[in-house]
């Protein structure tokens, strides 16, 4: 068999990722830019660094046109990779979608298949996963990470043999404590994975058929299969599934607020590995900071750490920006202060205004805080073409597109 590998990135669709609103109202979440690149670019970049991977298939249920121009751009940026998009017409679940496109995935007879969820932010240690795969003669390698306290219960929990790393038990979002080793949503499968999915489908069909409470005409057919609940859970004990535990950063990108820590983590990674792609540190640039070449930043503005400035953005004199994302063509006027926030496309932030979120550790998996008894996003978010007037303070607010803020606001969603 060849030593040729493929990768699949599961990108979801417009009816998913609603928690990323308001930023996903007019842009598909995988194309939202953190650390100067679309979310999905970061796994692509990691894939491109593994020579044995020749082809990437994006699977989702967005319209075909959505990724077309990005894919053309990536073709020049990653010349060693063939990148294509396959659209599911009905949501088949993560495993169902893979199975549906099995012919396309298996074309060219790849030996192994990486499967990556697009809403994961991590260092994507794909090479290390390949090594484990070879060494253990595995059928699947899962990327795992340890989390603190009861955060594990929000994720898929893995119990693995401490010496062999073989997966012994897997439960998705358990009610009680099982393990603090969780599933990162990055997998490496042998090409035989499709027979496993087939087995799981048959088992599910049988279960549904024998269950009198199930209406066969409703949506939960046996072809709707999720990787986590329907494959990893039932099969982990009986198959050669292993876990590779990463000590690097990892977090999910579910809510819009999680874009701020994701931006920070990817910037920190870039600062370690490719500092030349970032703004040069100076008295007014506290690294890491990404400034798009077409952005105009006044030399008296102080930026960083963990700041991304998008294309065409204009940053005025004496501005302070920290732990924030400023998107394309946004304007921050003089002496304004932007902390722990996202400033949307074409938004305008007035002079001496202050747009502020609440500091959260990048390792904190929650993106909400309770303020005055109300649960609010920890970051402040201005969507497309919002305007904050001079001297106004915006604190822990999410502002939907095209709104003008004329007076101080806090702990609100501005419709």
């Amino acid at each position, binding site marked *: 068999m060849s030593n040729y590998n493929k990768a699949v990135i599961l990108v979801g669709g417009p009816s998913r990722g609603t928690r990323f609103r308001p930023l996903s109202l007019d842009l598909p979440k995988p194309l939202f830019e953190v650390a100067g690149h679309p979310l999905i670019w970061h796994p692509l970049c990691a894939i491109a660094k593994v020579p044995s991977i020749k082809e990437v298939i994006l699977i989702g249920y967005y319209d075909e046109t959505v990724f077309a121009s990005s894919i053309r751009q990536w073709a020049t940026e990653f010349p060693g990779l063939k990148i294509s998009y396959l659209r599911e017409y009905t949501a088949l679940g993560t495993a169902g979608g893979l199975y549906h496109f099995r012919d396309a995935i298996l074309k060219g007879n790849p030996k192994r298949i990486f499967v990556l969820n697009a809403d994961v932010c991590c260092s994507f240690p794909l090479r290390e996963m390949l090594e484990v795969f070879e060494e253990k003669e595995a059928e699947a390698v899962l990327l795992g990470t340890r989390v603190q306290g009861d955060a594990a219960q929000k994720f898929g929990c893995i119990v693995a043999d401490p010496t062999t790393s073989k997966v012994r038990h897997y439960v998705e979002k358990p009610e009680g404590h099982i393990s603090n080793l969780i599933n990162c949503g990055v997998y490496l499968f042998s090409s035989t994975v499709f027979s496993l999915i087939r087995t799981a489908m048959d088992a599910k069909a049988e279960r549904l058929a024998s269950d009198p409470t199930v209406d066969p005409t409703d949506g939960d057919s046996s072809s709707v299969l999720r990787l986590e609940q329907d494959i990893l859970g039932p099969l982990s004990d009986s198959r050669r599934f292993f876990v590779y535990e990463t000590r690097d950063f990892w977090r999910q990108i579910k809510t819009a607020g999680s874009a701020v820590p994701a931006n920070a983590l990817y910037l920190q990674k870039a600062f370690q590995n490719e500092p030349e792609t970032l703004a040069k540190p100076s008295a007014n640039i506290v690294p890491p900071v990404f400034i798009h070449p077409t952005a105009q930043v006044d030399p008296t503005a102080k930026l960083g750490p963990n700041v991304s400035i998008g294309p065409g953005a204009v940053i005025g004199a004496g501005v302070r920006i920290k732990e924030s994302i400023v998107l394309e063509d946004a304007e921050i006027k003089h002496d304004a*202060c932007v902390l722990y926030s996202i400033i949307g496309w074409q938004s305008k932030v007035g002079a001496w205004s*202050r747009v502020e979120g609440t500091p959260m550790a990048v390792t904190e998996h929650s993106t909400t805080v309770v303020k005055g008894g109300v649960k609010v996003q920890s970051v402040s978010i201005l969507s497309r073409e919002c305007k904050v007037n001079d001297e106004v303070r915006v604190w822990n607010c999410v502002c939907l597109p095209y709104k003008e803020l004329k007076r101080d606001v806090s702990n609100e969603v501005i419709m």
Partner: protein
Amino acid sequence: MKALILVGGFGTRLRPLTLTLPKPLVEFGNRPMILHQVEALAAAGVTDIVLAVNYRPEVMINVLQKYEEEYNVKITFSVETEPLGTAGPLKLAGEILGKDDSPFFVLNSDVICEYPFQALAAFHKSHGQEGTIVVTKVDEPSKYGVVVHEPNHPSRIDRFVEKPVEFVGNRINAGLYILNPSVLNRIELRPTSIEQETFPAMVKDGQLHSFDLEGFWMDVGQPKDFLTGTCLYLSSLAKKNSKLLTPSTEPFVHGGNVLIDPSAKIGKNCRIGPNVTIGPNVVIGDGVRLQRCVVLAGCRVKDHAWVKSTIVGWNSTVGKWARLENVTVLGDDVTVADEVYVNGGCVLPHKTIKANIDIPAIIM
């Protein structure tokens, strides 16, 4: 002529400022509060001033000695060993106030206005009775004690109505009086209230008149009113085209009513005003926005800070991109770190604030 200024106690309502300086020495419009009063009294021909206090800080004695020479007045401390209310201190100082037949002024030390002492003395002499109290018109008389005149008489007081529910008038006691020495005979040396005991007795005898105050009036005994009073004072300076105010032709002055000590330094691209006072040796950085605030001597406000409705206490430092608002009061030598937000913080001296104060709080 003679005058008594009711200073009273420790000025706890104006803490944290009064933890550092006695209230009469806290600068209002860049000058100690008491100096406004001493100057106005001296200008009206007063030569003897009694300060009624129930403690006697050394620092005050030194400062007032300077004023004695400067204004050619004699300033005496009358120290109460126990609080005597608002009338008892007059009796305690009876020797000075009653040394001749001329009437004497009485002032509450918290009151800021355009002191009308000369006109008040002339009016008092013209009606020939024992006392005259200055009254000011207010929008909401229901919060105060209201003065009601005798029918068909423009000035003789008929009665006082405390916190009236129904409208009976809009003139209230402004805390400034002129009284004949004979009034001292009406007061016993014990804790007693001039408003509740002495004046009603004088009214009964038809001996008390009122005098309408022109212009602004404010009791600046607490931070919120101190800021409001500052606005009123600066507006009155502007109305008089006072040379004290920084001219609006300065590029950083916004909306006028800005009073800056000549020794203060202002950075580039600032927007200052309306209603700002900046004390001696203050350094304001670049791109700073100040409005409706008092910056006391020796402070540093760093670049791009934004300060509104705040009293920045002596020698304090406000960090870059800090934002202070909603009646924040910094005591002496407080540091607010860069980028920090303070909403209604009352910060005691020598503290450093490194994290946001999101809801009004006292920082011990």
